[in-house]
């Protein structure tokens, strides 16, 4: 698991190239590497309940080399286990999810199944991210969008939605 090249194909490959710094990328590099898009994509896909299957209507492909994969293996596994633990798209009980997350590594069949799920979240997340930046045209737009994502995320994390915070600010001014 996470010891070979990773491949993103089709539409999602095209999106990933636009989000990360890439030789073919002509837009703002929100992420420094494709693997960052891959990891954040997985997270965003899960958090936003977005799974997607590979869409090869667009003929594109991008690879993440095994050396890069291995270097980021800990992070990748961590995110993988989180998703395997938390994904409730199936009727698995928590114990079973724990086993899926932590005890199925040597079960090839299970791993293949799990990676399918993981990849679906990655693709969903890439779509989500792409949509977020879809309207950005200038550097400013990108920077502000990135900052907004962070801010909004931070507020949500602190049990305080970003919209709540804005409302609070508006209220205090009234």
């Amino acid at each position, binding site marked *: 698991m996470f010891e070979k090249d990773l491949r993103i194909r089709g539409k999602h490959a095209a999106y990933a190239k636009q989000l990360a710094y890439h030789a073919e990328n002509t837009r703002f590099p929100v992420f420094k590497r494709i693997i960052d898009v891959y990891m954040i994509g997985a*997270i965003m896909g899960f958090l936003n309940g977005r799974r997607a299957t590979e869409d090869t209507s667009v003929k594109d492909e991008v690879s993440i080399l095994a050396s890069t994969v291995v270097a980021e293996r*800990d992070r990748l596994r961590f*995110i993988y286990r*989180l998703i395997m633990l938390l994904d409730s798209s199936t009727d698995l009980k*928590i114990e079973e999810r*724990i086993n899926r997350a932590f*005890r199925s590594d040597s079960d090839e069949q299970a791993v293949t199944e799990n990676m399918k799920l993981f990849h679906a979240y990655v693709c969903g997340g890439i779509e989500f991210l792409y949509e977020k930046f879809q309207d950005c045209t200038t550097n400013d737009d990108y920077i502000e969008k990135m900052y907004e994502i962070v801010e909004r995320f931070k507020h949500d*994390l602190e049990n305080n939605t970003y919209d709540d915070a804005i409302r609070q600010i508006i209220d205090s001014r009234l």
Partner: protein
Amino acid sequence: MLLKSIRLRNFRQFQGEQTITFSCDPERNVTVILGDNTSGKTTLVQAFIWALYGVTNFPTKDLLNVHVAKQMHVGDEETVEVEICLNHDNTDYVIRRSEVYVCTNKDVRRRPSTLPQLWYKGEDGQIEPIREPVRINSTIQRILPKELSSYFFFDGERINTISSQQDVAEAVQGLLGLTVLSNAMAHLNPRSTRSVIGKLRSSLDVNSSQRAEQIVNQIDQYTERRDNITKQIDDLKQQITYYQEQIEETENFLREHQPTAALQRKRDELERNIRAEERALEEAKNRFVERFNKNAAAFFARPMMKMALESLKQTEVSDKGIPGMNAAAIDYIISRGVCICGEEIREGSSHHAHLIRERDFLPPQSIGAMLRTFQDQIKLYETLWDYDNLKAAHSEFRRCKDRINTWYEELSELSKQIKGREDVIKHEEKLQDYRSRLNRLLSTKEKLIEESGKLANEIERLQHHWDSLAVVSEKNRKIQLYIRYAEAIHEWIKETYECRQQELRKQLEERVNRIFAQMYHGRRKVSINERFRVTLWTSVDKDEMVTDESRGLETVKNFAFIAGLVDLAREKIKERIGGLEMALSSEPYPLVMDAPFSNADEKHVSNISRVLPDIAEQVIMVVMAKDWGFAEPVMGYRVGKKYYLDKRSETLTYIRESV
């Protein structure tokens, strides 16, 4: 020369002071002094020679009168003296020679002889002495050359003393006035280094001409370079004027457009600031992206981590593993192939799969341990996200952005103001450019002026040097010209001299032959060679041959020669030389003769006596009374003065004038 008088003092037999005054009358130009044998005729003629040249042909050198000497007491001094008064070249001379004799207790001794004394009467009538010994001798030599003295003081009894070997050529030439030419030739002589031409040649400076040529070349070079520089300077001056005008114009323009200039400067400053800020903005952007990316996964995974922790907290995780058993024990059992129950274990069998499953629940792979590790990982990841740094980078980006926007607004405002106005900055740049060009031109001009000055000095220095050399070379030219003149003059004189010498010789030969013919009554002829030696030729059967000469013939020959010489010398010789009338010296000469007729016969005496007073300016004859008897009928009427020698003893004679 004419002899005026002779005064003798204690000279041999002429005791005391005795004087003879000679006739200087042109008509009665003969002075006769009669004397018998041993009366002192020869002594008298010798007195002349002694006075002039300090020599005599007496066997004894003591000249003091014997009676005088005998009467001297110890310590007494007596003087022998001969004084001749003469006129030469229209000047009166007095020549006096003395010898002092001192009486000692043994004998009477002659003091060492001294030079004669010489006086002359100057044009003002004053008697002036000539003191310098060299001048005394040379004056006497000029009056009558010693070489010819035996001809003029003619001793008929000692005819042999006129040596035919003696070189009389120079003396004859001197007498005939050629000396001035030969002196001039010697003075100019091109072969001598001490002559005029020699000295002129040695004063030539041959090196300086070459040096002068070099200097002229150098001056030409320097002048050419300097001219070049002058042209360059003129060019520069034009350029300088151009730039000065441009600068003035631009400065005026800039003064008028001062406000615009300030605006343009402000605009440029803003542009510079914006460019800098844009660089800062780019950096802020990069910094922000950097920080966003750093541990982004850890940040965005936070909700999941939170959820995971909560899920795990709510779940009781049961470790179904066999207490005390661990994964290593299972591995051992599988590897030995036999279970602890004795059942055989084979890969792929249900027993084997069961054991593997069991092993997953055994340490170290216990679920509890794994979850603990996972939870630790979550906590670690939570700390990795640095929000503050990201926020700071964002703020910086914003500030840059704001500043840039503000400046762009200002810039736009300024541009509106400046729009349509001249670009002053460009003019300012031009002004700077003009100024630096002008400075370069000015400094180049300075350098060129300096170089030109140096060259001018150098040229001047060389010019001075050349001038000094030119003086030398001018001098050289002059000297060469002088040398050519001198050589021409020398050649001219030489030709004249040779021509004249030849002519004089011929004339002399003619005269001598004419006179000889008047004196000699035979068929003989005289020839004179280049050295002025006289040879007698005798006609024998139409041939002429040299024959032995008798004493009488010798006497006549010598008379003829001296008479011819005197005759020629006396003539005023005028010669046209190179178109100039040049007077050679002409001088009358006396003939002083001692017993001239001793060896001549009656006929010859008569002949000689007839000829001599006509030829010579002055004739002084000391003659025996018997010989005078033959001569008197012929020349008696020419006698102006007559003396006779009154012989009292062998050692005492008085000179008496006969009236």
